[in-house]
C-alpha cells in the first residue's frame, strides 16, 4: 500500500512558513495531518527533529524543497498543542508521535 501524499506536498509554498496569519494557520493544519498520517502509515512512534528533516515528509526531492528546522519545530509545537505529540527530552530533539490522542485510546 503506497502512501498518498496530499496535494499541498507538491506545492512549493507549503515548504515556506507563511507570514500571513490566516494562511499560516491553514498551512500548519495541513502539515499536522500530513505528519500524523505519514507516521501512521510508516508505523513510526518516535521522531528525531534533525533526522526528520531528511525524511521524505519534510524533504520533497521532486520539487527540491525542504522545510527548515525552525519551521519543523513550529509544526511539532502545533502538534503538541493538539495533544498528538510529547517531547522525550528537554532539548526538544526527540519526540513521541501519537496518531490518536491519549484520551481517544
Amino acid at each position, binding site marked *: 500500500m503506497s502512501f498518498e501524499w496530499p*496535494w*499541498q506536498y507538491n*506545492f*512549493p*509554498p507549503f*515548504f*515556506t512558513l*507563511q*507570514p*500571513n496569519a*490566516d*494562511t499560516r494557520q*491553514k*498551512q500548519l493544519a*495541513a502539515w499536522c495531518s500530513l505528519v500524523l498520517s505519514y507516521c501512521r502509515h510508516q508505523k513510526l512512534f518516535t521522531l528525531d527533529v534533525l533526522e526528520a528533516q531528511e525524511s521524505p515528509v519534510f524533504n520533497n526531492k521532486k520539487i*527540491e*524543497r525542504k522545510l527548515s528546522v525552525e519551521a519543523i519545530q513550529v509544526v511539532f509545537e502545533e502538534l503538541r498543542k493538539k495533544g498528538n505529540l510529547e517531547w522525550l527530552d528537554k532539548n526538544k530533539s526527540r519526540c513521541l508521535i501519537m496518531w490518536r490522542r491519549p484520551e481517544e485510546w
Partner: protein
Amino acid sequence: VGTKAGRTRAVGIVGIERKLEEKRKETDKNISEAFEDLSKLMEKAKEMVEVSKSIANKIKDKQGDITEDETIRFKSYLLSMGIANPVTRETHGSGTQYHIQLARQLGDILQAPLEERGGMMALTEVYCLVNRARGMELLSPEDLVNACKMFESLKLPLRLRVFDSGVMVVQLQSHSEEEMIASALDNVSDKGSLTAEEFAKLLGLSVLLSKERLLLAEKMGHLCRDDSVEGLRFYPNLF
C-alpha cells in the same frame, strides 16, 4: 657687466619673494575675513533661533487647533532660517504655507506621469522627476515629503502612502487598491508563480513597487510565498 647682472638678479629674486609674501598675506586676510564674517553671521542666526524658540513657547500657551495666521507666518520664518522644529510646530498650524503651495504645484505636475505609470510612483522617483524638471531652486527631500503629506487635507487627487516596509509612494486618488491586488493575482495565476522581478518586467513597473504589490496581495491573503535558493516566488494562495 658681471656685477650689474648680479645685482639685478638679486633684486629680481627679492622682488619675487616680496611679491609672493604679499600675495600670501592677501589670501590670509581674505580667509580670516571670510571666517570672521561667517562667525558673525552664525551669531546672528543663533539669536534668531533663540527668539523663535521663545515665540514657540508663547504659542504653546495659546494652544489653538485652528490654523491661525500668526503661526503660519512664524512657520515661514523658521523655514527660511532652516530650523525644522516640528515637535513644537506640529500642534500650532498643520504645515507651512510654502508646503501647501508646493503640494498644489506637485498635484499639477504629477498627474500625467502618474497616469502613465499606472497610478503609483515611489517617492524617490517623484523626487528625481520633479528636481530634474526644475534645474534650479531644487526641492529638498524634506520639502517633498512635507508637501506630499498635505495632499489629503488639500483634497488634491493624490495621496502619499507608506507601506509596511517604510517605502513611501505617491498614488492617484482614483487608484483602486482592490483592482491592483486583483490584477496582481490574475498575473500570478496566469504564470503559475512569479518573483518580484518577473512581475516588474511583466507590468513594466519598478521592482520596488511590484514587490510592494505582491506583498500587499499576500497580506490580504490572495498570494502565498515560496522562499528558496531560487528566490522569493509568489503563488496563488491555494491553502
